[in-house]
């Protein structure tokens, strides 16, 4: 009998992992090669300084790209950076890049913007690569079938010095959603629904692969929104297998392969899927029909509920720590149990962040607000994810739609997602935000954040309170 040697079936994650092992140690640690290192001003200065003190150089400036996003003002840029600490931090990055030969998209470069928007936009984020950045939302790049994860400043230094990272292999989890998404349910709602289901640390220690028809039918922008928030379920990374949608997005981008290289790359990229028979350490299955538009009510992203429901009663939680967390959250958010979500009014609407500031997000919000006005007393701002997103939106006339409706139209940056620049909530203000974290004080001390999709945020701007998009017209 002929015995045909069979390759062991592997997951997408395992294939990328295996392709980047420089060496394996007996203790189970692998030294992984990093294909792309993204750098920004906040988590890099101490790494560059330590490198210099140790007399080490940047090993691969050609695999490193820097941008300025967290601390930049998004209005009145002609005035310069008025915050002296932010100015010093940004000047430090500019000097470090000049000294080490790292390419930097400076503030006045239209290619600059939020680090997780520009990598894909430039075609640098490619399937089957490893990507790291000193930022937890690096998981965004997993939308392309790249193994991408956030790292701390010591690891930034490690990658600058060696272009590698010692890593212990994480576990794998599959989240499968098949079926048809109900009306009004966007990629943001899909990931909020997943986090509400598996919990704030439900993906801890795991790399999540999102599988099923919902993700196969999703645009690249939508996939980025989903993978972006993997960290809000505690996951190391999120992944979606590359397909024709991925290749079509990449074709013709500035740093995407061209000519024969493109064909070779696509041939490799087509192998990047989980083999039949490969197994995951954990599996979650969700029916698309069970998802709805979501609104977060608490102070972590898993404290999220359908827009049709009411603020939950802390007593309904079995775990005493969950109950305590819910009580603290309701006190901080100034919400009473039993309040319908659609009765919650907002003071501020923030449309932006690495989660939801791409062209599709802006289009979805513009479609809602076109011909309507922002409600009295509501301050609404749009902060595009990059200079190029801003330019494209202006070409499509989206800026006029937002401005005519009463939105502010800003320059690109992280902005009010974390408020490291002047864009912050005032104490007590309540915000419908398309960002990714609703932690206490995240958008400004004593500010109250409700995480929603761009369409939900836009509708809340118009009505002054949350609305059920499925019934609203």
């Amino acid at each position, binding site marked *: 009998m002929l015995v045909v040697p069979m390759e062991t079936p592997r997951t997408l994650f395992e294939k990328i992992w295996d392709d980047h092992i420089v060496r394996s140690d007996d203790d189970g640690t692998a030294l992984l090669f990093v294909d792309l290192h993204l750098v920004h001003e906040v988590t890099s200065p101490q790494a560059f300084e330590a490198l210099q003190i140790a007399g080490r150089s940047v090993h691969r400036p050609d695999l490193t790209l820097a941008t300025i996003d967290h601390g930049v003002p998004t209005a009145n840029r002609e005035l310069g950076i008025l915050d002296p600490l932010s100015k010093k931090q940004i000047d430090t990055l500019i000097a470090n890049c000049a000294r080490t030969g790292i390419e930097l998209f400076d503030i006045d470069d239209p290619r600059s913007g939020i680090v997780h928007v520009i990598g894909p936009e430039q075609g640098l984020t490619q399937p089957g690569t490893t990507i790291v950045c000193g930022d937890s939302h690096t998981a965004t790049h997993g939308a392309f079938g790249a193994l991408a994860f956030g790292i*701390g400043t010591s690891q930034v*230094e490690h990658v600058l010095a*060696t272009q590698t990272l010692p890593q212990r292999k994480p576990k794998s989890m599959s989240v499968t959603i098949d079926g048809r998404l109900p009306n009004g349910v966007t990629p943001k709602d899909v990931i909020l629904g997943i986090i509400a289901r598996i919990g704030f640390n439900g993906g801890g220690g795991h790399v999540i692969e999102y599988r099923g028809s919902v993700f196969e039918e999703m645009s690249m922008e939508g996939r980025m929104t989903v993978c972006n928030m993997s960290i809000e379920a505690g996951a190391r990374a999120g992944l979606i297998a590359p397909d024709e949608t991925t290749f079509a997005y990449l074709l013709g*981008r*500035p*740093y995407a392969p061209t000519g024969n290289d493109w064909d070779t790359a696509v041939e490799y990229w087509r192998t990047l899927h989980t083999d039949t028979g490969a197994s995951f350490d954990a599996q979650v299955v969700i029916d698309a029909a069970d998802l709805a538009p979501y609104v977060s009510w608490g102070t972590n992203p898993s404290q999220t509920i359908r827009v049709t429901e009411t603020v939950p009663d802390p007593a309904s939680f079995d775990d005493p720590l969950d109950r305590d967390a819910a009580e603290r959250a309701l006190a901080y958010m100034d919400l009473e149990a039993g309040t319908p979500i659609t009765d919650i009014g907002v003071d501020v609407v923030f449309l932006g962040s690495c989660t939801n500031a791409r062209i599709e997000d802006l289009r979805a919000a513009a479609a809602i607000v076109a011909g309507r006005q922002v409600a009295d007393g509501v301050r609404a701002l749009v902060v595009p994810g990059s200079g190029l997103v801003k330019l494209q939106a202006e070409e499509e006339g989206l800026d006029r739609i937002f401005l005519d409706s009463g939105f502010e139209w800003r320059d690109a940056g992280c902005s009010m997602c974390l408020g*490291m620049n002047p864009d912050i909530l005032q104490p007590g203000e309540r915000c419908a935000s398309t960002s990714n974290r609703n932690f206490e004080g995240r958008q400004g001390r004593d500010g109250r954040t409700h995480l929603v999709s761009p369409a939900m945020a836009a509708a809340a701007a118009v009505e002054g309170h949350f609305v059920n998009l499925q019934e609203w017209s």
Partner: protein
Amino acid sequence: MRPVTVIRGQMAPLPRANVDTDQIIPKQFLKRVERSGFGPFLFWDWAQDAEGELDPRFILNRHDYARATVLVSGPNFGSGSSREHAPWALEDRGFLAIIAPSFADIFRDNCHNIGLLPVVLTNDEVGHLTNLAADPANEVVIDLASQTVVAGDFTASFDIDPAVKHRLLNGLDAIALTLRHADEIADFEHTRPGWKPSLAAVPSTGY
């Protein structure tokens, strides 16, 4: 890095779940480019009221916990952002170890990289230590070599990645360890396909 061997000291109880890095050190303090001096900003929004007055009820403001070197907290400690400023602030404030039922992945790695010891115990064990920590006179001893935690009659053991344990016990520089394999990195780089992303490539289009 200073070796981590035996940590002996006072415990401070912070029995909350999901203590996130935005609480450990809020964003306005991330603008500094220095590596040290983050301690005064630790738990800023919990330690002070809106007027900037210290809240005397917050555990780390209490004089009888001024010597604390071990923080005892709830599950998913260090969740949220990758900011290493969070462990830097804890370290700068004098903490040497944190005991919790679980830690967020990036935060745990960041702690390992600076020599701040994250210790995972069971919910019940952490609950027991939290009760002991309510008396500021109680001390704890964490022995990394034997992977044990002892406080009075209480004894528990914990798991740790053997590679991390070796590095911490000996105070080894992770980058120096990796650079010993520079030849293997070079070999890997030679096999890396030319079409993989590189900033050295000439962009095919303007934008």
